[in-house]
C-alpha cells in the first residue's frame, strides 16, 4: 500500500511540475488568448482558438461590458455575409460581435445566445441586440444535424467545447456548468498549454489533411469574387442539402419552435432581436424543394411574432442575384458591405444606438417600432 501511495504521489508531483513549466512557457511564448475589440468568429483560424465553436465558447469572456452590443448569431453565411469590421464601421457607438458558427442550426444558435447572456448583467442584456441570421439550412433537425461518428449523438459543436476541457459536465439533463462563467478567463488561462498544443497540431497537419482527405484549402476573397458556380456544382449542392435535411422537401417544425422560444427568451431578458432572412442565390431558391416549405413556416412564425416589442424582421431576398454568390449560400466578399448597410439600417431602429449614429436605408420593420 505504501509503495503504491508513494508512487502515486511522485507521479502527481511530477505532473504538477511539468504542467507548471508548460503553462509558464505557453504564456511566455504564445501570449494571452484574448484580444481587444469586437469578436469575429470568422477570424477564429487566426487565433489560438483555431475553430469557430471554440472561439465562441472560450473567447466570449472578451465581450466588453458597458457598451451597447450588437451580436450576430447564425451559420456560416451570417459569419461571411456580415463582416464584423464592416458592420462595426456603420455602428461606431455600439460594440459589434459576430459569433456565428459554421453549420449551426437553431439549437446551436440558441446555445450561443445563452452563452452570451450567461456572462451579462441584467443591465447589459437590456443594451444588447441579437441579430439572428436564418435560411432553410439552419432548420435541420437535431437528430440529423448532430449525429456524426466523431461525437456523442446529440452533442452540438458548442456542447463539444463545453465538455472538452471539463468546463461543463455531462448529465442526464444536459450540460451542467462546472466552472462559473465569471471564472472563464482564469479557466482559459489555465488550459493555455492545451490551446497551444491544439493550434500547433492543426497548423502542422493542415497540409497533410488537405492532401489526404481531399479538403479544399480556403479560398481568398479575390478567388471567391471571381468564382462562377457551375451546373455540376449546383447539382452537387442541391443533393448535399437533400442529404443534410434528410427529406425530399419537407422541413419539420422542430427548429422553428426552437427559434420561436429563443426569441421569447431574448425578449423576456430585455434584449432586442433582429431576425434576418438571409438571401440565397435565385437558382437555389428556385430549384430547392425546401425553399417553398421554408417560406410557409416563416410566414407562420412571423405572424406569431408580429407586434412584439423589441423585435424586427429583415427580408433580404432581393439580394439573391446568382452572380453575387460564390456557392449555393455564401455571398461574395464584394457584396458584404451592402449586407452590412442593410442590417445596420434596421438595427438603428430597434437597437440601443444613439440617434446620431442611426442610418435610415432599407429593411422591413414589421414590429417593435420605438
Amino acid at each position, binding site marked *: 500500500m505504501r509503495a503504491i501511495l508513494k*508512487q502515486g504521489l511522485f507521479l502527481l508531483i511530477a505532473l504538477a511540475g511539468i504542467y507548471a513549466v508548460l503553462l509558464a512557457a505557453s504564456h511566455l511564448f504564445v501570449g494571452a488568448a484574448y484580444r481587444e475589440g469586437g469578436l469575429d468568429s470568422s477570424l477564429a483560424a487566426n487565433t489560438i482558438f483555431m475553430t469557430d465553436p471554440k472561439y465562441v465558447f472560450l473567447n466570449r469572456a472578451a465581450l466588453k461590458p458597458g457598451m451597447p452590443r450588437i451580436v450576430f448569431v447564425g451559420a456560416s453565411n451570417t459569419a461571411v455575409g456580415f463582416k464584423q469590421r464592416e458592420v462595426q464601421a456603420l455602428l461606431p457607438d455600439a460594440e459589434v460581435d459576430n459569433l456565428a458558427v459554421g453549420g449551426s442550426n437553431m439549437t446551436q444558435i440558441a446555445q450561443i445566445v445563452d452563452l452570451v447572456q450567461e456572462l451579462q448583467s441584467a443591465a447589459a442584456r437590456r443594451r444588447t441586440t441579437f441579430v439572428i441570421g436564418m435560411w432553410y439550412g439552419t432548420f435541420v433537425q437535431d437528430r440529423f444535424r448532430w449525429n456524426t461518428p466523431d461525437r456523442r449523438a446529440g452533442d452540438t459543436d458548442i456542447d463539444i467545447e463545453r465538455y*472538452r476541457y471539463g468546463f461543463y459536465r455531462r448529465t442526464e439533463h444536459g450540460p451542467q456548468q462546472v466552472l462559473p462563467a465569471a471564472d472563464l478567463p482564469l479557466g482559459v488561462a489555465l488550459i493555455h498549454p*492545451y490551446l497551444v498544443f491544439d493550434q500547433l497540431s492543426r497548423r502542422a497537419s493542415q497540409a497533410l489533411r488537405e492532401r489526404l482527405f481531399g479538403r479544399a484549402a480556403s479560398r481568398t476573397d479575390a478567388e471567391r469574387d471571381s468564382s462562377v458556380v457551375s451546373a455540376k456544382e449546383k447539382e452537387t449542392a442541391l443533393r448535399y442539402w437533400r442529404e443534410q435535411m434528410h427529406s425530399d422537401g419537407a422541413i419539420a417544425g422542430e427548429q422553428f419552435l426552437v427559434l420561436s422560444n429563443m426569441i421569447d427568451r431574448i425578449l423576456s431578458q430585455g434584449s432586442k432581436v433582429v431576425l434576418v432572412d438571409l438571401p440565397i442565390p435565385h437558382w437555389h431558391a428556385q430549384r430547392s424543394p425546401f425553399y417553398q416549405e421554408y417560406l410557409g413556416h416563416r410566414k407562420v412564425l412571423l405572424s406569431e411574432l408580429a407586434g412584439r416589442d423589441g423585435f424586427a424582421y429583415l427580408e433580404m431576398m432581393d439580394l439573391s442575384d446568382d452572380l453575387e454568390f460564390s456557392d449555393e449560400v455564401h455571398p461574395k466578399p464584394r457584396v458584404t458591405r451592402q449586407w452590412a448597410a442593410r442590417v445596420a439600417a434596421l438595427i438603428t431602429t430597434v437597437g440601443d444606438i444613439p440617434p446620431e449614429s442611426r442610418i435610415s436605408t432599407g429593411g422591413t420593420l414589421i414590429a417593435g417600432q420605438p
Partner: protein
Amino acid sequence: MDFTSSLYLGFVTATVLAFNAWRAPLLRQFVLLAANLVFLAGFVQSAEQLAPLLGFLVLGYAATRWVARWHRRGVLEGTVLLIIVVFAVLKRYTFLPLRMDLPFLYLQVGLSYILFRILQMVIDSAGGEDEARLAPLDFVNFTCNFLCFVSGPIQRSNEYLMNRVQLDRGVDEAVAFSAMHRVIKGYVKLAVVSAVFNYLFANLSVPVLAESTAMAGWRYTAQYAASAVTYTFYLYYNFSGYMDIVIGIGWLLGQKLPENFNRPFSAHNIFEFWSRWHMTLSDWFKTYLFNPLMRFLADRVAAPIWLPYLGVIAFFVTFFVMGVWHGSTSVFVIYGLVMGAGASLNKLWQVFMTARLGRKKYKALAESFAYATLARGLMFAFFALAVTGLWVNMDQLSLLARRLGISGLMFAFVGTALCAAVIGPAVDHAARLLVRLAPRLGRPGLSGLFAQNIVLASEVCLIFAVGSFFHKAPEFVYKAF
C-alpha cells in the same frame, strides 16, 4: 463503464486502495468480488438485464460439477453443445436459421469471454483436472473478473488459482512503478496512437463507403487500402493498449494476467501471426478446437500421407470459427471464411513447399531475408484486408466488392504487401536504433525515480492533450466482439 472515463479511473483507484488496505486473502477476495459486481452493475439499468448472464453462469457452474461426476464422453459432448446453444441464443446471432431471442434487453458484453472460461472449466473438469472446479466465490471472481470481463485476456482457471494462492503478497516500489508505467503506456496507445489512427481511418473511409463518390480506379483502390491499413493499426493499438491497462492494474491487485500481444506485424505467416495477436484466444482455440479436431480426423484417416492435409482442414475450421466468433451478423461469416481460406492456403503452401524442397531447404528459404520480408508484407496485407469485415456491414461489403472488382482487390493486396515489406523492416531497424541510443540520452543525475516519473508525467500530459484535441476518446473496439 468507459475505460477512458474519470468514473473508471476512480473505480480502479478505489479498488486498488481497498484491495491493498488488507493482507488477508479472504478479505481481498471479497474486495475483488465487490469490484466485479460494481463493474457488472455499471452496464445495466435493472436486475432483469443481468438475469440471462447470471443464468448462464449458474449453468456453467453446474456443468463443471456434473461432467466431473459422470465421466462419460456423451455427457461432456451434450454439456458442451448445451452451453454453446444457450450462448448462441443469448448472443442473438442474426445469421442462424432458427432464432429464439429473449424478448427484452439484457447484458451481452462479456458473454463470449465467459463462454471461453466456462468451456475450459467444463472440458478440463471432465478430463479430471481438479483445478477446473472452482469454489463458488472463486468461480464468480474468475468468470466475472472485471479486468478480463470485456475482452480478455482469456485466463485459464489454473492460472487464476496460481494468482489466488499468492493473494496475500504486498506490492513493492518496483512493482508499483512498473504497474503504473504499464497502465500509462496502455492509455498512450489507446487514447493517443489509436485515436490518431481512428481519426485517419474515419476520414479516409468516408469516400470509400459513400454511395455516391467521385473516386474511381486506382485512386479508389489506394484509398480503400489506406483505410484498411489505418483501421488495422487503430485496432492493434486500441486492443493492445487496453491489454496493457488491465495487465498493469492486475499487478496492483495481485493478479498476473497472461500477455495477449507480441509484435504481431513481424509475423511471417498466419500461424505465427495468431501466436502473436490475441494470443490467449488463439491458444484457447488451439487447445479446445484445433487439437481435438486434429485427433478426431487423424483417428479416421489411416494413411500418414494425408496427415498434412488434415491440418489444412482443421486450420480452416478453427480460423473460420474464430472469425465468426467476432460478431453476430452475416458479414462475420464472410470474415470467418476469408480467415479460414487464408489459413488453409497458407498451410497448403507449406505442405507443397516442404514436399518440393524438403524440410531443410524450405526452412532455409523461409529464413532468407528476401523471402521473410516478402512473407511479412503478404501477411500484413492479408490481415489488413481481411479485417475489412470488422468495419463494414453486408451492404457496404458488396458495394466495396463491386467497385474494387478482382483486379482492384489484387492491386490493394499487392500494393499493401509491398509497402509493408519495405516499411516493416525499416521501422524495426529504427526501433532497434532507438533502444540502443536510449540509455545514452539519460544525463547523469537525472536517473532514478525522479526521471522515471517525469517521463510518466509527460506521457500523462500527452494523453490529456490528445484527448482534448479529439474530444471523444475512441471506443474500445473489441468490446463489440
